[in-house]
């Protein structure tokens, strides 16, 4: 045992030394790699997501779709304005922690990424954006809907997805439009992290304008192991409309409890809900979640491009493409477009090109082009109302994107 220890110690010590030396050498080598010239054949795009930890599943799907987009672009000849330069995704793992996210951001910048994408959790995203801003490298948010993030006067950051404010406003608008007269009361239930509270606040403030009475607002911690008491509360209130904001696991817990107790609610509507908009949700709950609604970002169901994308994703990863993944996919196309126009992979040129983005052909369910305002937010970002019908997600509102009529529970 002692001998073993000694051997282990020696191995360990030498590995440490070697890695440290290697690390330093690598560091000095890539020191000035930040702005590799336009003649380079490979353009690096950084991607920081929580690949380990609680959000590993969602993060993985985003990375998958980014890789898919890059393959498509490279197969189609890369960035033509730069002599067919190829794109490469450099992946960083934020481990769901802000300072790891920040240091991964720094690493990807050091490795010469022209632009970064990330990171799913708003807190981590914000920290990473601060780092990108300081290093003067553009940062395109894939998924993170916190409003305040873009109120800091950042000049290098962009976001194509709708923020929590847009979600909540759209929700209020759409629900006013589609509600029937027998829907008089509502309960809002959401998880208590940034994602839930952001939209939750705006909805509870504006609920009155829809003419529906908000009976209660129930919050819980997303990592909870049970929601039975919350559902008990809910059962006592008997709302006509249940509004739920949460991730996949907690929303599933909620639905499980509702089903077990046979609680039927006239209308269930999520807001950017990680559960209801996931196809696994349908396969797990079947008929019981029929007619559930979700106000969420989504791909445009009526475009051929989308249909092809969904098929190729499924073929490649044998899993349905999640709603989050769409933003990973589209983010790469937005970047490729900027690179094409910039004709350079210098972060500054990419940023300037990003500012004048105007993409009309995209897979998103939003009317109008992808184009950024001065803050860096996508002006036309919008949510759509999705419903589960016959075991499929279909868009039911606004009519521009609708695949089907909204169905009501009797």
């Amino acid at each position, binding site marked *: 045992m002692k001998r073993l220890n000694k051997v282990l110690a020696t191995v360990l010590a030498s590995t440490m030394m070697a890695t440290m030396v290697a690390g330093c050498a690598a560091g000095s080598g890539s020191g000035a790699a930040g702005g590799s010239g336009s003649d380079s054949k490979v353009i690096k795009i950084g991607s920081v997501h929580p690949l380990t930890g609680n959000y590993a599943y969602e993060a993985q799907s985003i990375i998958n779709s980014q890789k898919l987009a890059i393959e498509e672009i490279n197969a189609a000849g890369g960035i033509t304005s730069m002599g067919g330069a190829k794109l490469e995704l450099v992946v960083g793992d934020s481990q769901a922690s802000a300072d790891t996210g920040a240091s991964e951001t720094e690493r990807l910048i050091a490795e010469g990424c022209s632009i970064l994408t990330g990171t799913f959790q708003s807190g981590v995203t914000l920290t990473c954006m601060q780092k990108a801003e300081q290093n003067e490298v553009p940062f395109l948010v894939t998924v993170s809907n916190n409003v305040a993030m873009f109120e800091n006067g950042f000049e290098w950051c962009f976001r194509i997805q709708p923020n929590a404010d847009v979600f909540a406003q759209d929700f209020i608008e759409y629900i006013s439009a589609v509600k029937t007269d027998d829907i008089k009361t509502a309960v809002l239930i959401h998880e208590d992290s940034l994602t839930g509270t952001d939209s939750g606040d705006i909805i509870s403030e504006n609920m009155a304008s829809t003419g529906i009475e908000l009976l209660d607002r129930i919050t819980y911690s997303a990592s909870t192991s049970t929601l039975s*008491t*919350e559902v008990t509360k809910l059962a006592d209130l008997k709302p006509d409309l249940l509004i739920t904001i949460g991730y996949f696991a907690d929303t599933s817990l909620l639905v499980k409890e509702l089903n077990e107790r*046979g609680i039927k609610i006239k209308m269930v509507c999520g807001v950017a809900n990680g559960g209801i908009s996931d196809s696994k949700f349908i396969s797990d709950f079947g008929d019981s979640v029929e007619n559930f609604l979700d106000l969420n970002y989504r791909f445009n169901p009526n475009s051929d491009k989308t249909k092809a994308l969904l098929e190729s994703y499924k073929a490649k990863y044998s899993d349905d493409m999640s709603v989050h993944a769409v933003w990973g996919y589209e983010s790469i196309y937005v970047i490729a477009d900027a690179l094409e126009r910039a004709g350079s992979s210098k972060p500054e040129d990419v940023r300037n090109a990003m500012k004048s983005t105007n993409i009309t052909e995209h897979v998103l369910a939003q009317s109008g082009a992808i184009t950024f305002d001065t803050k860096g937010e996508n002006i036309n970002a919008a949510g759509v109302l999705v419903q589960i019908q016959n075991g499929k997600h279909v868009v039911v509102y606004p009519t521009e994107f609708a695949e089907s009529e909204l169905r009501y529970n009797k």
Partner: protein
Amino acid sequence: MNAFFQASIDGVLMGGVYALAALGISLIFGVMKITNFAHGALITVGMYVTFELYVLLGITPYVALPLVMVTMFVIGYLVQKVFLNPLMGVAGHNQLLLTQGLAIVIENAILVMFSANYQSVSVPGFETAIRLGSITINKPKLVAFLFVAIIAAGIYVLLEKTDLGRAIRATSVQPEGATLMGIVVPRINQIAFGLGIVCAGVAGALLTPTQYIYPTSGNTYSLKCFVIAVFGGLGNIWGAILAGLIIGVVESFSALWLGGSWSELIVYMIFILTLIIKPTGLLGKKG
């Protein structure tokens, strides 16, 4: 009133599962004075073992239970043998960081092997709850509660009525003395750790019909188990059970009256009060 009864029942049932997981912590701490921070990760392992058996053999978690127990025992036995026994003599903070390191390894090894996808196990006939008037009782949790009672009783008998149990208890009181009596302490430690991990694994297995399985799904229980184990009195079986039930009910009622976000606060306050007022826990002997 209805909500009151419902919350009590939900609390008690959830408390049963907490109690079982905490029992493992209590046993491990009681015998080896190890604060096992890998407990949550091992609960997850229990879930995945159950899930794999469900996928491969198509058996429900309840049928799979004996196999889960054996697997978990072996895992626990080996973890103690390979990682913890060599560290038994050194300062406690090493074991703490070691179990923390193991938790990282286990959690991410699962991620590598099974991907981060949400997995679930369904038991036919268990999708709906039992109804008694307006009160509903969750079937998987009810069954889990029964299993918890059986396993707790089993561990009680093992500890109190068998030679092995006596050896374990002797080791927990005084390892040096036990050595003098001819007890092979390292092996007893391995068995005790194995048993503790069986508790974690069974808790995980029993939870599979009620929740999703993903690489970090056991983590939620980790801290709560410590609270319960200390609250009940470290090393005390009935204390852990009682404390589990109390914490389950407290959590349920604080969620009802204060909201789920604050229920954790109440649990931790109870914990600190226990430490201050009676550090030996509910049923622990006076210090």
